[in-house]
């Protein structure tokens, strides 16, 4: 008997991850739907974690952005494991003080740690980072494999572990600092705050408009995926799937052009002459200066300690 299509079964959730037992033909579609829903929900809902309480809730996004960039740059200048650990602790502390949800911190840190560990694993071996062996992991026994000469043993080295630990701590600190920025500011505010870093007005306006219309195009892409899923029982083969994806992208491009024309006409109707004007940002308050000064002092202290310890 032919089984019911997925979308007719009770409890069907379009964006849910594809079940493992099913054949993989619809998995790219469902994976894309899940990603689209995640991005859309972040864009259309207020993603701030610190609406009521939190250390940074009253700080101007420009000050937060400036402070965040200063600390991230400082993190890229640190080399000692102790100072990098201190920087990570500071970043996690800021996230906690800013009332970023622990689940969100754990998810971002976990993903960053998993990915960096995977990428850095070969760097711990003596074939990439020579040094004193700590643990022998394989014994190829020498000899050669075609044109390649095999080593007698492959071992994890102390130097390799130090290199990998440095990269793990640095990327984790940077990712956590970026999370503090994203989780304690509205997207629109964060992009407008780029003016404080000297980004030209036109670029800031394009960025804010992109953020505004991104949801519209993402919704169009989501509808395309849902329509395709609702009409699918099984896979249609890789070539036709690729053709469908390309046609979907073409359809989104047509929507892009139509929307751009409509937005242009609407802007012209409201007096747009091509000159970029943004709302005058509010004056910096004492708290904003305090945030930036504290970040700068922390950055200088971390770099000085790192150089001193080195």
């Amino acid at each position, binding site marked *: 008997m032919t089984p019911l299509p997925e979308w007719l079964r009770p409890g069907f959730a379009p964006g849910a991850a594809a079940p493992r037992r099913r054949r*993989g033909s619809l998995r*790219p*579609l469902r*994976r*894309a739907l899940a990603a689209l829903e995640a*991005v859309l929900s*972040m864009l259309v809902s207020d993603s701030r974690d610190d609406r009521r309480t939190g250390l940074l809730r009253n700080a101007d996004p420009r000050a937060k952005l400036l402070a*965040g*960039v200063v600390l*991230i*740059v400082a*993190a*890229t*200048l640190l080399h000692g494991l102790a100072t990098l650990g201190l920087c990570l602790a500071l970043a996690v502390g800021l996230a906690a003080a800013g009332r970023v949800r622990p689940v969100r911190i754990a998810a971002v840190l976990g993903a960053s740690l998993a990915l960096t560990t995977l990428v850095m694993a*070969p760097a711990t071996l003596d074939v*990439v980072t020579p040094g004193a062996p700590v643990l022998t992991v394989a014994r190829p026994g020498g000899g050669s494999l075609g*044109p390649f000469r095999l080593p007698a043993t492959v071992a994890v080295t102390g*130097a390799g572990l130090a*290199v990998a630990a440095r*990269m793990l701590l640095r990327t984790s600190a*940077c*990712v956590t600092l*970026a*999370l503090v*920025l*994203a989780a304690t500011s509205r*997207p629109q505010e964060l*992009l407008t705050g780029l003016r404080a870093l000297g980004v030209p007005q*036109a670029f800031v*306006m*394009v*960025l804010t*408009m*992109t953020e*505004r219309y*991104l949801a519209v*195009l*993402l919704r*169009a*892409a989501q509808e395309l995926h849902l329509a395709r899923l609702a009409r699918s029982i099984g896979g249609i083969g*890789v070539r036709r799937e*690729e*053709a469908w*994806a*390309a*046609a*979907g*992208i*073409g359809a*989104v*491009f*047509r929507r892009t052009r139509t929307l*751009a024309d409509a*937005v*242009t006409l609407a*802007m*012209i109707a409201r007096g*747009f*002459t*091509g000159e970029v004007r943004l709302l005058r940002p509010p004056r910096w308050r004492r708290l904003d200066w305090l945030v930036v000064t504290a970040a700068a002092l922390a950055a200088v202290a971390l770099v000085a300690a790192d150089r001193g310890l080195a």
Partner: protein
Amino acid sequence: MHIPDGYLGPQTYLPAWGVMAPVWSWASARLKRTLRRRQLPMMALAAAFTFVVMMFNVPLPGGTSGHAVGSVLVAVLLGPWVAVVAVSVALAVQALLFGDGGITALAANCLTMAVIMPFAGWWTYGLLAGRAGSTPRRRALAAGIGGYVGVNAAALATGVLLGIQPLIAHDASGRPLYCPFGLAVAVPAMALPHLLAIGFVEAAVTGLGLAYLMRTEPDIPIAATPGPGNRPLRRLAATVAVLALLAPLGLIAAARLGAGTAWGEWSAGELSALAGRLPAGFGRLSSLWRAPLPDYGPPGAEASPMASQALWYGVSAALGIAAIVAVVLALRRLLAGKDSDDAAP
């Protein structure tokens, strides 16, 4: 391909910002002249479109899937300078709001995905697509090849940016401070997946996407289609000819400054003299192929006067260019053959 924070040292990301600042300034000034009042909404929507393109999962043979960048498609449809701004804005939104790609590495990511990729793809498309009258199939094929070339050029550039980190940033004991993988690891690690899999996703999205648009909207303006007045090949030929004439300058300057052979480009004899011994594998493999013009001249030319060596250098440049042009023309002929098949009833 998005490089996160922490993988590139300031020795790399600061120059990347230095390179991108004038590129962004030039791109926005150029667009201000061409797009006028439509510039801002079109830029914003093109950036949003690029972002959405990256959300489409495209299946690959073998059960896996990948996503395209879309830079080349935007370059072909709207022009490469629109692609520079649109992809840069999309990357900035990804880095700031979604943590995809680093904030310090943003300029480096823009250099690879918003400059190198769209221009490599756009030039390839312009070279293979022919004039405005060429058939949709030829243009879609050219766009697909442009997508493949573009994404591979970007992957190669990313591999180089990561691979030079151990060379330019290491501690006193020689241990790398940033990405620990040298060029020998980083370049193949980036290039191979793109050459074997991801490049085909980009090619499919770019070629089939353009084909869909040409079929459903036959009058759609395509930025990269050369008009009857444009002569991009003539300009390219003039630039290449000037570069070929200037090629011997490097040889003359090296001789004047007393510089030896470039590091790592030694012949078996030079390596043997430098190291005191010749590795067995090197000796065996170095005699596998005898080039017709070794060191850009006939055998023994290195002992001849500098003027003669410079002349041979120029001749070698001309021969090399001729060989590349022959390959490209053969490819064009191949694609043109497909055109005539289309035209048949």
